[in-house]
């Protein structure tokens, strides 16, 4: 376009600038590629290639020690009829609903309190502390603290006259317990993400509301929530996907039991692949999970109108 206009309106100042820009971008290309190379290498080696190979293996019968054998869509047919797969999916869903539901509300409350009530960096730091402890350590510490016979939590319950609860051992309480343990670990971090979003809301809006005499409650629902929505959606997309990946807490505590009550989908995949060496089937489970997660993420972005901001 600019080339076509150029002969008629030769601008002495524009043309060298354009040339300079073009020249610079060509100059930048090589270093840019060099900077991208390590990340690209990592992505291709550790994500793209394994993902493609997983896709291929999902059509094979593969037990590691013999070469993969092509079986077509047999694994997928088996997945659909696999009672334990559906069970693991509902267990995972139960975990995600409890985990994300509680975590989002708690994190939002903490973020708003940090935003409206205190500017103390010490409190912000303290809130983040659980997140700095490794998942496995958090899981094992809670596992011990919540033991039915020797755990400190149950000693407390008994002091106030309640019966001990086998939090991790009961089929009905195991998943909620795991979900809440992870809420405890992640709430500070999630609150910080939301807090960052809150800071992008101009203070003039709040000042106007204050002049109009709006209550804090009304300010939250009429100003904070609408203006926070895009950030909240991004946080939700990321935390929901992360939540679906629940594995480590289960692996070091309940190991899928009692019965099938905590056999979440990633633990089931792990069992199939690394304990039963049924890699073809495990790969098919991975692909199915990938499709589900992609669908969940796209639905979230669509339904919650992530791209639109109410700040105009």
């Amino acid at each position, binding site marked *: 376009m600019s080339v076509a206009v150029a002969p008629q309106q030769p601008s002495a100042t524009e043309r060298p600038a354009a040339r300079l820009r073009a020249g610079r971008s060509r100059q930048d290309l090589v270093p840019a590629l060099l900077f991208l190379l390590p990340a690209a290498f990592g992505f291709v080696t550790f*994500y793209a290639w*394994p993902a493609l190979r997983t896709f291929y293996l999902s059509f094979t019968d593969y037990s590691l020690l013999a070469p993969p054998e092509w079986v077509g869509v047999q694994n997928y047919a088996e997945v659909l009829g696999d009672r334990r797969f559906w069970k693991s999916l509902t267990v995972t869903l139960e975990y995600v609903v409890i985990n994300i539901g509680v975590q989002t509300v708690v994190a939002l409350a903490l973020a708003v309190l940090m935003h409206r009530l205190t500017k103390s960096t010490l409190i912000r730091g303290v809130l983040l502390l659980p997140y700095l402890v490794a998942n496995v350590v958090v899981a094992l510490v809670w596992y011990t603290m919540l033991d*039915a016979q020797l755990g400190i939590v149950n000693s407390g319950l008994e002091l106030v006259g309640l019966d001990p609860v086998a939090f991790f051992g009961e089929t009905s309480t195991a998943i909620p317990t795991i979900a809440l343990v992870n809420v405890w670990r992640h709430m500070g971090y999630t609150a910080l993400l939301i807090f960052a979003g809150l800071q992008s809301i101009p203070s003039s809006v709040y000042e106007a509301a204050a002049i109009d005499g709006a209550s804090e409650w009304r300010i939250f629902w009429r100003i904070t929530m609408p203006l926070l929505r895009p950030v909240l959606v991004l946080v939700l997309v990321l935390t929901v996907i992360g939540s679906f990946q629940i594995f480590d807490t289960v692996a070091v505590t309940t190991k899928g*039991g009692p*019965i099938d009550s905590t056999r979440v989908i990633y633990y089931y995949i792990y069992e199939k692949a690394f*304990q039963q060496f049924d890699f073809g089937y495990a790969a098919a489970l991975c692909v199915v999970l990938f499709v589900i997660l992609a669908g969940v*993420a796209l639905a979230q972005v669509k339904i919650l109108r992530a791209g639109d901001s109410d700040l105009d």
Partner: protein
Amino acid sequence: MKKTLRLAAAAALLPLAVGACGSGDARSGQADGELTYWLWDSNQVPAYQACATAFEAENPGTKIKIEQFGWADYWNKITTGLVAGNAPDVFVNHLNYYPTFAAKNQILPIDEQVEEAGISTDVYPEGLADVWVSQDGKRYGLPKDFDTIGIFYNKDLLAEAGVDESTLADLTWNPEDGGTYEDLIAHLTVDANGVRGDEPGFDKSKVEVYGLGLDENNGAGVGQQIWSMYALSTGWQFTDENPWGSEFQYDDPRFQATIAWFKGLIDKGYMPDLATSRAGVSVNDAFGAGKYALSTNGSWMIGSYFGYDGVDVGVAPVPVGPSGERATIFNGVADSIYAGTDDKEGAWKWVEHLASADCQKKVAEAAVVFPSLPEALEVAEEEFAAKGVDVSAFTLPIEEGATHLYPITDHAPEIAAIMGPAMDAVLAGEADASSLTEANEQVNALFQ
């Protein structure tokens, strides 16, 4: 904004979603003259390091590099190592895993070498050497050490109950009323008011000390330290033949009666329920905290049970069952040679050294496991005794010929995946012991 977000979401999704599906394992290549040796029990590393030092002195130019990984990582690392072609030259193998490795030609048979070296397998306790001969009739290992099951007991809790320790050797058990074994368990159970399980007014909802502990591990279809010693003492067997059976017998009335009795202990308040046992602390730690008077476990747990401060511990043999005999699983490990090793000859020499009386006596001195070689076992018994541990309860079933082999079959991991939840369901009270007939059908379908 909309596009970028969507793109960001998609980009964020891809690696996250495939994250758990890829796996890599890389180890540096082996230097010439160096043999890598893997084992999973960290307690045994010093003893085997001593064996390696002696071996290196006898074989100049050969170096042994010992590496240890915990049980949970061990088999993943071995398997990925076999696939990547860089598995350790020699590694400790288990009866659950070696059949697959042998069938896929990943480990080397050692029949010729054993014959050439003039090693007699008759010296081992009966059956222990046979399990390392695979379905193809070839030998894949020499038994190194073994384990059996016993009953750990808290001496103070027994004294409080007025139970004479010496009577524990004469316990009998049956699936109908549990015999004198259940009488003992009931008597050792104490509720919050100090009422014992065999006394009127016992409150099973407020138990302070359980007579018998329940393992935090899911015993799946083997129940090695959990229920196998009862079931096997009825005359029941896991499979039609062992090793290499192809038909499991979880539908047998004797087996199901045993499991029903076992679950009955929970209902009576003599044993913690499944939820409590799985809620966080291991059975041995709860025993160490004085919550259980008795706890059945394997000889490999001696170190843990005897390691609690202020707890005076003894070991009794498992009870005599309806068959008129005791029963315990008799399990062992052996060293296997990786088929892809650069130095087959050196690897065999090392395996031969590991199985030798010299090395096994060094292992015995550490008093961690029971060596298979009788002369080394004697050393171990003395060393255990020096530590204040009388291990005769573990060796008595061997002298009585009351040992049973670990069920060695194909499909072990798949069987565990079926039987684990099925046994859980029975112990949790969500299914009857008769539901195991259906699980048995699923298990046997694997062999068709």
